[in-house]
Every structure is written in structure tokens, then in C-alpha cells.
């Protein structure tokens, strides 16, 4: 039942999948469990965009240390996404600004988008999965 073995659904179709992360890490499981489907989608050779908006931008904070709450630190996974051919990472400027954050605060390189760029990106997707 390993997901990674099923890299091809046989159809040869490539669709644009957007994963929209809107939740902070740790308070809920969505950030952690959501990463799993992102990795599998890339293994199916689909066109994956990973977007962080609203509290989702907090997932990418540098300096996360989860020892005190005794849960897994999965923030390093974001740095390994390259290795899975997931290269389209986006964050929106409005969400960073509202949280007093800049690109320098984030653990990975991302493209920072304006609201208009976010709208266009979202509209051109075939499938949007949001947490």
C-alpha cells in the first residue's frame, strides 16, 4: 500500500494542482498531513504549486523548535521539496505584511506574490486543494 509505488495513473495527463496552506502549524494537523499529499502529487508528475497564505505563511518560519510541545518538527521537509521536483513555492505579500514578516524570516526561497498575482495563479489551476 505504498503510495510512492504508484507514480503513474496511466493516463499521461498533467494537470495544474495548487495546494493552498492557510493554517498555522502545530495548532492543527493540516500543515503536517497536507505535506503528504503534496509529495504524492509530485510523484504523479503533476504540475504542483504550493501556496502559503493567511496563517499558512507561519509554516515556513525559521527557528522552529518543537521539543517543548513534544511533537515532530516537520519544517525541514519544506527544504527537501526540491528533491521531489516541487519548485513552485509562493507566499503572498499581504499575508507576510499582516504578520510583520519578510522573506528573510522564511526557511525556504519562495516567490512573493501580490494579490493580483495570487488571483491569476489560482484562476489558472485545474485542481485546488486547501487546508
Amino acid at each position, binding site marked *: *500500500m*505504498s*503510495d510512492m509505488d*504508484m507514480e503513474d*495513473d496511466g*493516463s499521461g*495527463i498533467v*494537470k495544474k*494542482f495548487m495546494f493552498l496552506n492557510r493554517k498555522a502549524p502545530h495548532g492543527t*494537523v*493540516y500543515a503536517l*498531513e497536507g505535506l*503528504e*499529499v503534496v509529495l*504524492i*502529487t509530485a*510523484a*504523479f508528475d*503533476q504540475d504542483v504549486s504550493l501556496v502559503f497564505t493567511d496563517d499558512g505563511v507561519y509554516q515556513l518560519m525559521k527557528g522552529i523548535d518543537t521539543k517543548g510541545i513534544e511533537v515532530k518538527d516537520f519544517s525541514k521537509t519544506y527544504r527537501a521539496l526540491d528533491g521531489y521536483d516541487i519548485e513552485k513555492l509562493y507566499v503572498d505579500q499581504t499575508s507576510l505584511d499582516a504578520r510583520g514578516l519578510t522573506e528573510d524570516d522564511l526557511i525556504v526561497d519562495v516567490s512573493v506574490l501580490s494579490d493580483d498575482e495570487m488571483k491569476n495563479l489560482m484562476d489558472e489551476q*485545474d*485542481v485546488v*486543494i*486547501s*487546508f
Partner: protein
Amino acid sequence: MQFGILINEGPYNHQASDTAYLFARAAIEKGHTIPRVFFYHDGVNNSTRMGEPPQDDRNVTTRWSKLAEEHGIDLVVCVAAALRRGIKDELLAPGFRISGLGQLVEMGIQYDRLVTFGD
């Protein structure tokens, strides 16, 4: 059209599974097909056959089983989310099966639409 449905929350605590069910039924009534429903995160808790809601309330799980039987819907429970939460094969209601997230990705690739219900 073929619609895929993704359910991210458990039964009763959130309305998500109810809305998804009523959406699915309406889609079928309009001549669309729902080849598969995928249960992710706490959504896996929809699949246990052990639930016994009060007599005057709906049984969310039984309702999915029945709709699946009548219309050939594949009810797939995410294996990783299920393991974490203690949903095992021996607890599954009729029509549900446990499989990988690849089944969700396939829905996105193959079907015309994918609609998410959650919290």
C-alpha cells in the same frame, strides 16, 4: 460529469460530511457520477461501523455506505491518517476501503471536478 469529493472532517462534530453527502446525492440526481469519495485527516472517522447515533438523528456512516452501494461509489480512507487515528480494516462499514493518497491524486487527474468539504 465526474465529480470527486474530498472530506477532511469527522462525522457529527462538523457539518462537512453532511454537506458532502447531500451534495453527492444532488449530483447523482442531476445525472452526474461520483466515482469516488476520499476521506482525509479526521475525515477517516466517517468510516467506522461502530457508531450508534441517537435513534432520532441521522447515521452519517450508514448513509455513505448505502449511497455507495446504490451508485457504485468507491469510499476510500487515507491509510496514513487512518493509522494515526486508529481506523482499521476490521472497523470499516460496508463500502469503505483503506488505501493511499495516490487515490486522491488520481481523482484530481481523472475527474472533471474535485470538491473539498472540511473545517
